[in-house]
């Protein structure tokens, strides 16, 4: 159960951070497109739990949780959203282009599907250099419609690359449901299997299942040196881009929203931990620790300065 408390802490931390971003976003100081992962936090926590420092990650537009779960620096994340020089790319990339090389979070990119080949290339490098780690590639259900997804998986299977493709299937691409994008009956995991990868599919909001599957998949890559794909079913609670809830727009069935609210990963973790007599105390401490960390990060970000415009010409070329 120790593990689960750790998982809970990580998940809670990301949730609190994302909620703090949401709360402060309307102050109009974080001036960049921002995609929150509230509701989907468990997936990267469950994945990262089985990763080491040697493992690397790539992600998409919705990257905060992936960045944080991999060990990304919170202070640098918040400063990045504020566009400050202390941000993880000194304000150049913003929310959609995060990077923290120290923890192995290579980068997130903003074009749907376009970091999947990059992650695959990273795994190729690992294979060629006989490096210890593997690569994780995060993306959504929408990204699997891009040819880049398909071409990358084909290559990974061809070359037996050490990579874990993590598809967070939250069933929407912006406001568009799967039904207008993929044929009925599509299974992303079965499809991947036919491309040539071992694949898994699991409720990404269910702690035990998500953890077990992540572990099994990652172990498979480590032991067989072959790629896997894991399809995690999950749901985002808020709007696609921005801080608000948007269920007043009715693009998602009320009932569907409710089902997934009931299956919220944090709730699920709390329920699972409820029997633990020490949990309440642990939770209280966790909340206060996290809140303090968040406050510090925001204070640091707000008080940091913008980079100098004079430096804008730097790094066009190496």
């Amino acid at each position: 159960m120790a593990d689960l408390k750790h998982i809970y802490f990580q998940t809670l931390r990301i949730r609190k951070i994302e909620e703090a971003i949401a709360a402060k976003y309307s102050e109009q100081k974080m001036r960049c497109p921002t995609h929150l992962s509230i509701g989907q936090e468990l997936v990267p926590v469950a994945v990262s739990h089985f990763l080491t420092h040697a493992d690397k990650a790539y992600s998409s537009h919705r990257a905060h949780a992936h960045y944080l779960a991999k060990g990304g620096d919170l202070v640098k994340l918040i400063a990045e959203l504020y566009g400050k020089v202390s941000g993880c790319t000194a304000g150049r990339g913003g929310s959609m282009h995060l990077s923290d090389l120290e923890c192995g979070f290579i980068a997130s990119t903003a074009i749907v599907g376009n970091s999947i080949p990059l992650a695959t290339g990273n795994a190729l490098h690992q294979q060629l250099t006989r490096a210890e780690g593997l690569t994780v590639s995060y993306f959504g259900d929408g990204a699997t419609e891009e040819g880049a997804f398909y071409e990358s998986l084909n290559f990974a299977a061809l070359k037996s690359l050490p990579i874990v493709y993590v598809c967070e299937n939250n069933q929407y691409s912006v406001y568009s449901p799967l039904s207008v994008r993929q044929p009925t009956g599509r299974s992303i995991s079965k499809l991947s299997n036919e491309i040539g990868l071992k694949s898994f599919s699991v409720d990404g909001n269910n702690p035990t299942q998500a953890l077990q599957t992540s572990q099994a998949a990652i172990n498979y890559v480590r032991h067989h040196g072959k790629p896997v794909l894991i399809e995690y079913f999950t749901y985002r609670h808020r709007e696609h881009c921005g801080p608000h809830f948007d269920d007043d727009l009715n693009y998602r069935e009320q009932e569907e929203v409710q089902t997934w609210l009931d299956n919220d990963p944090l709730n699920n973790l709390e329920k699972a931990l409820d029997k633990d007599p020490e949990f309440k105390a642990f939770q209280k401490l966790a909340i206060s620790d996290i809140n303090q960390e968040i406050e510090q990060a925001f204070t640091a970000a707000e008080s940091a300065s913008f980079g100098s415009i004079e430096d804008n010409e730097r790094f066009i070329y190496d």
Partner: protein
Amino acid sequence: MTDKTTSFAQQILDAQNLAMQEDPTMICMGLGIDDPKAIFGTTQGLQETFGEQRVFDMPTAENAMTGIGIGAAVAGTRVLMTHQRVDFFLLAMDQLVNNAAKWHYMFNGQMTVPLTIRLIVGRGWGQGPTHQQSLQSWFSHIPGLKVVVPSLTENVGQLLYNAIMDNNPTIFLEHRWLHNQIAPNAAACQPLTEAPQHTRVLRTGSDYTIISNSYMLSEALQAQKYLQQHNVHCEVIEIASPTSIDWHIIYQSVSKTKRCIVTDMGHTFCSLASEIANKVYSHCFNALLSPVSIIGLPNYPEPTSYGLTKEYYPDVNTIIKTVSNNCGIEIAQLKSRQHHDVPGEWFKGPF
């Protein structure tokens, strides 16, 4: 309708509505075309009016979807596709350049490609390196493509309607910051069905020719007005279609004014602005009093940060400064807007 204000977005919508009515084969597709935001309001109600068969959302698969649009167009379906950013469309260059642009030519005129692709140029609120590119120069470089770059509410509808009804593949580059631009009413706009004038002298003047399009044209018009007060009279020329420029109008203007500025929404190296400058030099060789000035983006990607983008986009003051430097007179800069990264106070982010 004639007594209510109309907007750039509304005119785009009107043009689509009319085209869909006029040509019952026509279809519209694009990511989120029927979603609650309706592509910045520009596709509002289209699906309700024309049905799900003719107006539909699509998979995130820009390359094949462009090819599918071309294939349908070749078969006889008039097609309009919309992408929310130019940047996303980079995935579809093979279909655009190897098929759409060349089809009519390489099959010896046997088929046409009645396909229009609306691409929205992003800007502001931290759009950053991959959500703000403006590639009119790329598209204009390819023979067989038509490129249309609207700038004003008064003719955007006409330009779009005509682009759609044209049987050639057309790239329609819409600047995000223009969508809320207002005109007094629909009657103040060019009639949708009339053939547009692609090169227009919007303001006459004797001292300077400013050639411009897209959002920069708004800045140019502002500069013209202000410079007038300082007794510098600028002629402002709109180039609504880089691939159908009426060069005579430009040469005539520069022969008169003897000085010229060309603006570009993109990077300037190997750009449309350089091309125009080159042609102006070559045809007004003896008339020009000083080198043509090119105003465009600096040669690096847009950083995301509010703090770093302050001087990334040229604006009315860049034009004023260029003119005053060139004419050797001091003219004070205009006061800047409160926030450089939004088109107006109404804009609260995030997309």
